[in-house]
């Protein structure tokens, strides 16, 4: 009994593993697997706005026309995993995450490579600000000091190193540790969270008495949390809405992040236009073959 079931298991296992490893040549007739994010995600909000996937409909109302067959992934990594595993897939994700990931390929947009230099010089168009959000001006000493660190030469070096575009220049002041103590909660966008974690780690090294907790929940939750006091500082990977600024939300840009259009490594497509991106993500074009025409 034991031996039999064991051999059966081995058989199943080798079959399964063999099949997953089976990778055919790229077939352009394949239906494109469109990978998007959930409604309310900052990355999706910025993406649909910048690429024209969101457009005014007949009644003049802004409408997000994302293809109804698009897979909805609940995070940057799930987008990247899905695209890395599926030859026919296309998705979009924070450039800073894509730069740390060699399992997918970032496409050139309008012939411009997705890189920090090209975002800085303004040629790569699909980019959005990473914001920290506070309710009015900060009053808490620790929060103020942390923000000073984030915007300092040292903080912005971390931001740049992570693949974001920093607005820091020679005038940016250095941070001097004041050995603050206490605790802070920073929460919001899942795209901003990774770099914020690095910033928090850097800060806590300089101020061992301080404790900064980073929560990744989502851009809108970050703004809401900053307004209702759940978070001392919120994070949003998009510009604030009017309804949010009216309630007193104040945004500070800590860096600019590109949104990379990513495909599978096996996909021969290297370059895409914004119009093609729009066509794919609204479902007007559904195969790779049709896209290249």
């Amino acid at each position, binding site marked *: 009994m034991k031996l039999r079931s064991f051999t059966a298991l081995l058989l*199943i296992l080798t079959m399964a593993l063999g099949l997953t490893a089976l990778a055919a040549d790229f077939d352009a007739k394949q239906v494109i697997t469109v990978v998007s994010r959930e409604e309310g995600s900052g990355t999706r909000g910025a993406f649909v706005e910048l690429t024209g996937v969101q457009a005014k409909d007949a009644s003049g109302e802004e409408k997000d026309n994302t293809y109804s067959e698009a897979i909805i992934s609940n995070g940057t*990594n799930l987008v990247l995993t899905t695209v890395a595993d599926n030859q026919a897939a296309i998705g979009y994700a924070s450039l800073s995450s894509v730069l740390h990931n060699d399992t997918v390929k970032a496409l050139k947009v309008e012939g411009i490579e997705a890189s920090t230099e090209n975002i800085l010089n303004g040629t790569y168009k699909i980019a959005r600000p990473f914001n920290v959000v506070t309710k009015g001006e900060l009053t808490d000493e620790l929060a103020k000091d942390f923000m000073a660190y984030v915007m300092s030469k040292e903080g912005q070096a971390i931001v740049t190193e992570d693949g974001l575009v920093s607005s820091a220049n020679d005038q940016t002041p250095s941070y001097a540790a004041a050995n603050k103590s206490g605790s802070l909660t920073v929460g919001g966008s899942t795209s901003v969270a990774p770099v914020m*974690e690095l910033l928090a780690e850097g800060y806590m090294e300089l101020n061992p008495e301080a404790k900064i907790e980073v*929560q*990744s*929940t989502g851009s809108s939750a970050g703004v809401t949390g900053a307004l209702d006091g759940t978070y001392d500082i919120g994070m949003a990977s998009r510009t604030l809405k009017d309804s949010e600024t009216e309630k007193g939300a104040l945004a500070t840009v800590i860096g600019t992040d590109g949104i990379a259009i990513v495909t599978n490594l096996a996909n021969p497509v290297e370059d895409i236009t914004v119009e093609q991106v729009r066509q794919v993500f609204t479902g007007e074009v559904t195969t790779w073959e049709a896209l290249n025409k």
Partner: protein
Amino acid sequence: MSETGATTPAVDITVPTRPSMHLGSRFLKALCWAAGFVTIGVLLLIIAYILVNGLPEFFSRDEQGTLHFKASLFALKYNSRNLSMLPAILNTLTMTALSLLISVPLGVGGGIYLAEYAKPGSKLVKIIRVTAETLAGIPSIIYALFGMLVFVVTLQMGISMLSGALTLGTMTLPLILRQTEESLLSVPMSYREGSYGLGAGKLRTTVRIVLPVAMPGILAAVLLSIGRISGETAALIFTSGTGTGIAGINDSGRTLAVHLFKLQEEGRAVGASFAVAVVLLIIVVLMNALSSYIAKRLTKKG
């Protein structure tokens, strides 16, 4: 399921006489074996897949090609480079302890009431049974909403280990309550009579004589609860949140299961998630093995 014991429906026994019917039954029996193999096969496949992919993640090769244990996976502080799971492991322990602190006293106390004090068949007992069954059937995403609305927002505990533990405490309560009741009921009446005969009171009899005998059954339920708590994700994401540090009662902290879920979502490493899955699997297997070992000892005694 204790209710199943009462089955005595009337059924016509039609006895097959033709050989073709024997063949049909033979075929069904073969199907039974096939189904059994599928069940065991699936379990082995899952475990093997996670282990095969996860175990190598605990080691790294240096330039000479010698294997080293990746101690950074268990560094005291999590950061986005080492992806340490130690804080998550400690948070899982805290979460388990806190949740059990809530559900065990309530569950055991309630079970004692149902088994030793309540009049069987009374209205109150019926309501308690029905509500316990209801609690057991509520999906974890509803517990997530409940925990968020009640503990995080209304009682202003914020996203914290405490909110998470209260939520999971409620979730595991019915499991412990029902198992305690069943274990107490299976203790022979003679134990109680003997104790009364020696002049002991009700409380003394229950706590000193009956409860110790029923202990293995209760312990098995506690171990199963530990398994559920360490595996829970949905109910914790909005109650105890995703804090990456070693969390105190009022801090947000991710347990191992939430850590795995979040690594999928935002992180930059698939390998590390396999490693987390391995640890999670080991905890569950351990808890299950312990639980069935204790249950086995219990049946041997009885």
